[in-house]
């Protein structure tokens, strides 16, 4: 009974990790940058979502607008930072990314934006039902997170594997220079990459905001390093790896918190998993040397 409930909770948690990690993985795949500022996009997505929701009171519309806004914001981040750092050692954009993250978090805390307080995001389960079985229950909020994640990931999967632009994206993440030499407009592919990845992060922000009924300027701090752990675990730039790692991390966290949670807080468990993993599989679950 407990087991099934823990597992279903873990899967829901894994979904939110996954939405974050997918975008990060996509950016890493093409630019080889650990895009820490991705977590700012997550916060901004939640912020835009809660604002729109307070005006229109419709979850789906606020999700859509938050995703579009986040996507465009992601493109701007690329265009005004990483764009200038394509041909320098990869530590430079990494440091730029950390700086950007700190700056954006500070900016968001300004009174004219989010301020220092938490906002409620009372969208509930957007009308989805609650599911009760003899073994476990899924709240309507959880069902919302699960179904939105699945739909978005299936769409991304289809885009990457069934379309020409998706094939171009795969080529660009394997060999950027050569991709340009078969006729791929790298700027366009990378912008698209940022748009999609950032829109997913924005969706994650909205969903987590609703789940916790709370949106605040520093809500990206935790996901910033969790997502980072996930892409290292998953094997830098491997999308299937990131999916696996998201679920795995969420499961391990949930079960360890349930058993030894009084010794170690949840978030140190994540790092413990990372360290153990790197000891035994330094290239991540599905990574290649």
């Amino acid at each position, binding site marked *: 009974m407990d087991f099934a409930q823990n597992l279903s909770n873990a899967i829901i948690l894994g979904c939110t990790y996954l939405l974050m990690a997918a975008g990060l993985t996509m950016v890493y795949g093409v630019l080889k940058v650990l895009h820490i500022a991705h977590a700012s996009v997550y916060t901004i997505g939640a912020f835009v979502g809660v604002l729109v929701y307070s005006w229109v009171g419709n979850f789906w519309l606020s999700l859509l607008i938050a995703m579009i806004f986040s996507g465009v914001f992601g493109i701007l981040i690329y265009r005004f930072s990483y764009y200038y750092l394509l041909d320098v050692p990869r530590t430079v954009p990494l440091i730029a990314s950390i700086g950007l993250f700190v700056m954006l978090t500070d900016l968001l805390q300004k009174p004219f934006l989010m301020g220092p307080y938490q906002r409620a995001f009372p969208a509930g389960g957007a009308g989805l039902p609650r599911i009760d079985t003899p073994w476990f229950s899924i709240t309507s909020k959880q069902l919302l997170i699960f179904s939105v994640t699945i739909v978005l990931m299936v769409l991304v999967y289809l885009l990457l594997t069934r379309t020409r632009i998706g094939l171009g994206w795969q080529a660009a993440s394997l060999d950027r220079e050569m991709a*340009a030499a078969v*006729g791929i407009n790298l700027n366009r592919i990378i912008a698209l990459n940022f748009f999609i990845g950032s829109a997913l992060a924005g969706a994650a922000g909205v969903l987590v905001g609703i789940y916790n009924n709370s949106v605040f300027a520093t809500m990206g701090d935790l996901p910033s390093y969790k997502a980072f752990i996930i892409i290292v675990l998953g094997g830098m730039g491997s999308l299937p790896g990131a999916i696996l790692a998201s679920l795995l991390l969420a499961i391990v966290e949930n079960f360890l918190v349930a058993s030894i949670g009084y010794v170690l807080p949840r978030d140190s468990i994540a790092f413990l998993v990372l360290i153990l993993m790197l000891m035994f599989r330094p290239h991540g679950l599905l990574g290649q040397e």
Partner: protein
Amino acid sequence: MLRVENLHIGYGQIEILHGVSLDVKENEIVAVLGANGAGKSTLIKTLIGWLKPRSGEIYLNEEPIQQLPPWQRIAKGIGLVPETGRIFRDLSVEDNLRLGAYLQSEAIIKEQFQVVYELFPILAERRKQTAKTLSGGEQQMLAIGRAMMSNPRLLLVDEVSMGLMPILVKRVLQVIGELRNHQVSVLLVEQNAYEALKIVDRAYILENGHLVLQGTPQELQENPKVKAAYLGG
């Protein structure tokens, strides 16, 4: 087709090519021959747009192209077979070829698949395989096939013979020679002067950053200096 005027190219402080001028005419196969490290790949990288020249001009059909990014040069009809092939190793043979026709319409893609599979039947057989499982020679054929997928007017080929067994070198260069029948001009850079001279219309010799000689294969084969330095006496 291609005209290059007084190109100076280098990396950082060091200049590698000190004023290179050459041309490739419609349907002509031209080689630039030079020893290892002569700057052949440097020239190709500049022609495709990976590298910016310090000065000089590149014209494709009398239109200056040196300001264009690589993808726009491809759109204008250039195809590239880079050094070591650089196929997309983790993708299937078919996806590699499809990528070669990234800017083409579905109709042309269909046609070009036929052209390429006819040139290299082995690629048709292996089309579902991951590219990295191909042998070295097959990988070079895939690299050529990929470049042919865009139905280019000018093909740039960087040392296809590198790392291949002698028999394959012959075979692969022969195929490049046969591209004549596909209305494509070829600029081929090669270390293997002996084999390259068998298939080209004209060749240049690159030494110390200058094109020191040019001529037909026959002229070059009879030139004592070329004989001594490039054809093993």
